[in-house]
């Protein structure tokens, strides 16, 4: 049994207004923060369920989770200590890094938080969409604070939200993170509904996505002095070489170890389902975790069988792809037994990576045989 890694939202509130954001406020109450009772229940029930011989990872998310303040997170750590039962507990936080004062930095450093942030490219590209409420770009602030976090010795990485506007910026994106010495991953811009996906100015076609990823892969793969990891590709190579389904996108059914807990305690499969009442699996404050994990919604998601998906069962990339993200399939078809919207792009990417690795191994073999 895999331990549950809860994605815990301290709040859905955010100080930024990114153009493509999918997070909605809490029913007109954007300043709502997770109450102490919900926080206590979250920590105690997760730690009670998980196997203490393996680490438990709490993933703090939002909105902008740091808006909850260090008092909230000190409370979380106190509950972790109270309910640990000997657990090795790790904390990660996904933050926009725009409100990082010395108090917060000191807290994160003292408590060894892993820090994830978001940068979409160089300043002009990033600032076009990742703005404050007042409409100001955030690149300079995020860049400066990313370096502060790194200089403080914390583990830090970044997500790039790939969309039509930064699709052609792969060289700049790679150079930016390479120069910073910061690992990153690519997430295609997310849409909660099919209609949004097909009407948004940010949408890319699956083919555009795949070709951009191949360009990025080559930049990284053939960098003779590579200094960083691109999480997306490391996971694919890991899967290719070790059948280790590390990335939720390509795990077939991600529900073995992930839950999302909203500030009010409602539990969803992940944040792609957030605020969709039909996917609420229970409430962490009022239901037992067993009841939540046994909910019909979760069982339905876990029963996804990509081997029964017509488009997948004879696909040569099935072992690597496993149908892709089930939500990305569901949005297209309203059926979880469906391939991901990004199927064509994923196929291009997997095919490209396999060819590149195979070419290199063959080159090394031929050189050896000629010596």
């Amino acid at each position, binding site marked *: 049994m895999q331990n549950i890694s809860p994605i815990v939202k301290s709040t859905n509130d955010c100080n930024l207004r990114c153009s493509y954001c999918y997070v909605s406020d809490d029913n007109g109450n954007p300043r709502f923060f997770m109450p102490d009772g919900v926080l206590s229940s979250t920590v105690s029930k997760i730690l009670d369920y998980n196997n203490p011989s393996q680490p438990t990872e709490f993933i703090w998310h939002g909105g902008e989770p740091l808006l909850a303040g260090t008092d909230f997170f000190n409370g979380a750590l106190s509950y972790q200590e109270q309910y640990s039962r000997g657990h090795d507990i790790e904390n990660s936080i996904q933050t926009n890094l725009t409100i990082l004062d010395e108090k917060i930095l000191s807290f994160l450093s003292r408590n060894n938080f892993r820090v994830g942030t978001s940068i979409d490219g160089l300043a002009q590209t990033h600032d076009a969409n990742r703005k404050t409420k007042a409409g100001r770009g955030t690149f300079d602030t995020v860049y400066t604070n990313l370096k502060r976090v790194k200089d403080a010795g914390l583990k830090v990485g970044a997500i790039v939200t790939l969309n039509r506007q930064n699709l052609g910026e792969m060289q700049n994106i790679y150079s930016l993170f390479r120069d910073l010495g910061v690992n990153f991953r690519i997430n295609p811009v997310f849409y909660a509904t099919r209609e949004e996906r097909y009407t948004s100015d940010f949408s890319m076609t699956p083919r555009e996505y795949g070709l951009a990823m191949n360009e990025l892969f080559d930049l990284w793969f053939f960098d003779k002095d590579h200094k960083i990891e691109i999480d997306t590709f490391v996971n694919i190579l890991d899967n290719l070489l070790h059948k280790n389904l590390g990335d939720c996108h390509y795990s077939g059914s991600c529900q073995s170890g992930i839950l999302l807990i909203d500030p009010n305690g409602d539990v969803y499969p992940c944040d792609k389902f957030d605020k969709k009442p039909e996917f609420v699996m229970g409430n962490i404050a009022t239901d037992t975790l067993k009841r939540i994990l046994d909910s019909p919604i979760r069982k339905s998601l876990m029963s996804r069988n990509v081997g029964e998906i017509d488009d997948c069962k004879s696909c040569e990339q099935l072992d690597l792809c496993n149908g892709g993200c089930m939500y990305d399939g569901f949005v297209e078809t309203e059926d979880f037994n469906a391939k991901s919207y990004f199927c064509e792009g994923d196929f291009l990417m997997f095919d490209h990576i396999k060819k590149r690795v195979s070419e290199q191994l063959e080159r090394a073999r031929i050189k*050896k045989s000629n010596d």
Partner: protein
Amino acid sequence: MNKMTTQPQLEEVARESFTGGVDLTNLDIEAVESGVLKDMLKSGYAPTEEGYSSSWSRTSYTRKVRPCRLIWP
């Protein structure tokens, strides 16, 4: 390759996934142009229950499904 390299696994996957397969016992690693792959072959790519022993990959993560909404630094 050092002793930690998971050569049998690589060979097995090579047979399964790569056309024609590749004999990984007989490679000139210096001929590999990819910095990523060269590091992988040199340092060994050896996942353990705790994570990965090699320098090219993550060092402290357990092997399990990870959500995409967070970068794992």
